[in-house]
């Protein structure tokens, strides 16, 4: 699997797509595969403040819950209401199913994130274990 080049990635398997001072966040294909069938996605409300590296929500499968970690700090401007009705979209199209949009507080934070190539390498190492 090659990971979309128009975005950056975290070691906790989130992706972030930047558009000037706003960004869109979701989880990667590796994440949805590890979780299995996703049954519920819990995201914060519009207006919530996210802090880079801190948890902002959860994603649940039948037998497990995983925390979602914010790739960058900022204020939530939009939340994908579709996922409340059809969480399976995250399984079917993880890179196309966005979870939230935010205005970035500190764009400099993005430098610390993984490039698509680095993320792919990281994932292959993880899978090898």
């Amino acid at each position: 699997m090659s990971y979309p080049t128009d975005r950056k990635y975290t070691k906790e398997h989130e992706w972030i797509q930047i558009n000037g001072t706003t960004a869109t966040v979701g989880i990667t294909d590796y994440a949805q595969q590890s979780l299995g069938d996703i049954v519920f996605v819990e995201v914060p409300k519009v207006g919530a403040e996210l802090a880079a590296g801190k948890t902002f929500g959860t994603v649940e499968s039948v037998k497990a819950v995983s925390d979602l970690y914010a790739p960058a700090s900022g204020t939530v401007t939009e939340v994908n209401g579709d996922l409340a009705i059809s969480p399976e979209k995250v399984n079917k199209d993880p890179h196309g199913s966005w979870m939230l949009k935010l205005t970035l507080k500190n764009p400099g934070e993005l430098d610390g994130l993984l490039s698509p190539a680095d993320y792919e390498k990281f994932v292959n190492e993880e899978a090898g274990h």
Partner: protein
Amino acid sequence: MRYLPKSPADREAMLKAIGATTVDDLFAPIPAEYRLKRDLKIPRQMAESEIVDFFRQRSRENGEGYTSFLGAGAYSHYRPVIIDSLISRGEFLTAYTPYQAEISQGTLQSIFEFQTMICELTGMEVANASMYDGSTAAAEAVMMAVRLTGRRSVVVARSLHPEYREVLATYATHQGMPLSVVGFSDTGRVNLKELEKSVTADTACVLVQSPNFFGTIEDVDAVAEIAHRNGAMLVVSIAEAVSLGIVEPPRQADIIAMEAQSFGVPMGFGGPYCGVIATREKFVRQMPGRLVGQTTDKQGRRGFVLTLATREQHIRREKATSNICTNQALVALMVNIFMTVYGKVGLKELAKQNLAKAAYAASHFAKHGKLLFAAPRFNEFVVQTSEDPGAINKRLLGHKIVGGLPLKKFYPELGNASLWCCTELTTRSAIDTAVGLIAESERSERSAKEEDAEEVAR
């Protein structure tokens, strides 16, 4: 020992297969200093007949054959015999928690029916598969409201069962949940003016009981209005489930925390009972306790499974909605069968009989003592007497009657008040005897006072 299905020969063969000489070899992992070298100092092994005798003797020492006017959170109702016939079936009694759905469909389907009937009776949209009891259900419902609103303070009615309030205080202490208590007015209901002052922008929920500890039905509409107007949730505790047959349930509540003991569970000196939490669908992910959901299998056949397990301790661990694991499944099955036996018409008739018995008793007590609290009530009422209720109850006990619960311990300001309960099992003759004894007591108290007054006058 007769519960152990092995002969000495079996044990020999097994030890040989393992490669051990004696069974004590298998206890070698326990350091020698801790291995017991003596018998436990407990009573010797008893024959079954001796065990039965022991408990029969205890039963005789435990008020066998007495009539009781006690309610206060534990109610004496008739238990249809088919409850025990059915729950005593080994497939229900000795079954495990239904984690393996394919071989637990009996348990799972009956819980699904239980959940459905609790919803119908309470007017809520979802109900869980039981909590330990009404008191812990109330405490867990409050914690649920705290999680849902993100607020921390809790307003509690003083007319909520005193022991339920104690339990809530224990749970609240470590969760940083300040509790404030709102008193009751002379109608027996929550004092709305006090409530208005107590509910703030930091109030997560208001918790009331209806019918409350005094048997009085709360003005839930008014309480709900105050709570909701301030962005707080309304949690209603119900201790006498039979009331739901004739009293409109608190549909304005956000969460209902119930005790279902009245529905076919023996009073059994306080437990096991059957708590339940019922709420609106949108809150289900914050609800503690097991939940059974309907689904299909790979061949499209209908079946039932435990669901939304990610709320629970075995997955969420320290982030779980509660630590509850074991629930009250067998007791909930008793409740299920009771609700099924009485059903739509029976539950109403049963409740009506309770209402009638209590109304008759209350009206007669009122002729001799002071009947407190004018608001509508279900099957309990409070009577104030001149004489200390403890002394009256002592005389009643001589007639093998257990009188109402003296309230001084919980509500000292009510003086010589006691809480009386009448159910469909309370006979007119028991009521008449109790009334007669109270009448006698009041007469002698009055003449004693008159004599005193004469003394003073002289």
